[in-house]
């Protein structure tokens, strides 16, 4: 499988909601449509909530992987349509 190109990395270790959601939302919105963001979170609630919330905002969740003990990586593609 081809490795997903990552346009921006965001490490949110040590953060819980609502910060994980706000910061990842701001980061994905700063990208161009189609660009890809990879977010690292260090708790399972954020690993569950961030993809669900971003997907609710209209972005495409590519994958959610458990990177390490207590660490998850979420890959999201900006899904906003070009105006």
């Amino acid at each position: 499988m081809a490795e997903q190109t990552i346009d921006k990395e965001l490490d949110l270790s040590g953060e819980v909601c609502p910060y994980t959601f706000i910061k990842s939302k701001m980061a994905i919105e700063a990208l161009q449509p189609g660009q890809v963001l990879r977010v690292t979170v260090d708790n399972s609630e954020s690993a569950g909530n961030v993809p669900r919330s971003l997907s609710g905002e209209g972005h495409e969740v590519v994958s959610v992987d458990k990177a390490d003990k207590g660490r998850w990586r979420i890959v999201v593609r900006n899904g906003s349509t070009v105006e």
Partner: protein
Amino acid sequence: MLLISVVSGLVSGFVGGYALQRGGFCMHSAFRSIAFEKEHSIVRSWLLVLAINIPAVLLLEQAGLVFPARAPLTVFAGLIGGLVFGLGMVLAGGCVSGTYYRASKGMTGSLVALTGFVAGGLMVTRGVLQPVRGWLMRTELSVAGEEASLYNLPAVFSTGFFPGFGFRWLIAGVLVLAIVIFLLRAPKSRFTVGWSWWQTGVVVGLVAVAAWYFSALEYRDYGLSIVQPTNALAGWLLVRESGGINWASWFLLGLIPGAFVAAWRAGDLSLRVPSARRLMQNLGGGVLMGWGANLAGGCNIGHGITGVSTLSLGSIWATAATIGGVWLMTALVYRTTAQPQT
């Protein structure tokens, strides 16, 4: 009798803690998402818990097994306590139950928030803020002289009419039906980490029903609560007063290892330390939660699940105020976080 209380409390607590952890059941996130997000999984878990408990409590009441003590409608205590509690929840990074299960998996920010919560609670129940609570609790509303419950509302419109169980089932049935219709419209979720919303809702819902039943065995007319047993255990540990130790205390003692084991099995157990700034914020949030929950006479569990399931107007009022507090603080956090960093 004590043995039944201890064993059933510890077992229910363990199952409850496990479910909260695996389900990521955070009522702070649920309350926030109502206004700020388009995704409502945790709200669904909460509503499912209510859809199980509203009829279950009524059934236990009709069977004469439980005599639910409905929280009184203390207007100002509920409003101010709920608001302060909601503001604190956002700063603490989670609701009271959330803070317990997160602390149990090594999140030091939540442990710090929990410490603040205990201290804030003691200030209100036994400390310097005790008179404030007494003063706020003075204004208490009733429904036509009866217990302030949604079930008694018809008495306002028709003096002297107090509905029997037939009418109560009608009210409960309409509410449950509304919830079920909302839940059936849930979108399919992808990328679920841990339990799905309905698994979490069913298990937490059943634990909440068990809480009513086992509490009634020791003549405690309430279901799940976190604030009361936190105060009771703190009182016992800190000043050797064992007065308030009951089923809920055993539940709370079971919840911590349950949450720990769930996190361990899911590979989510590790010591995590946020920034110093965030830790201070968690501490302040915890203290606000302790003040608020004890002024309001309950938290997201005691009011938000148990009280709302009895259709107590006091609990519904305090929960609404809590949601208001969460929205206010979230709006503030959005504003400050969204500012460009200079």
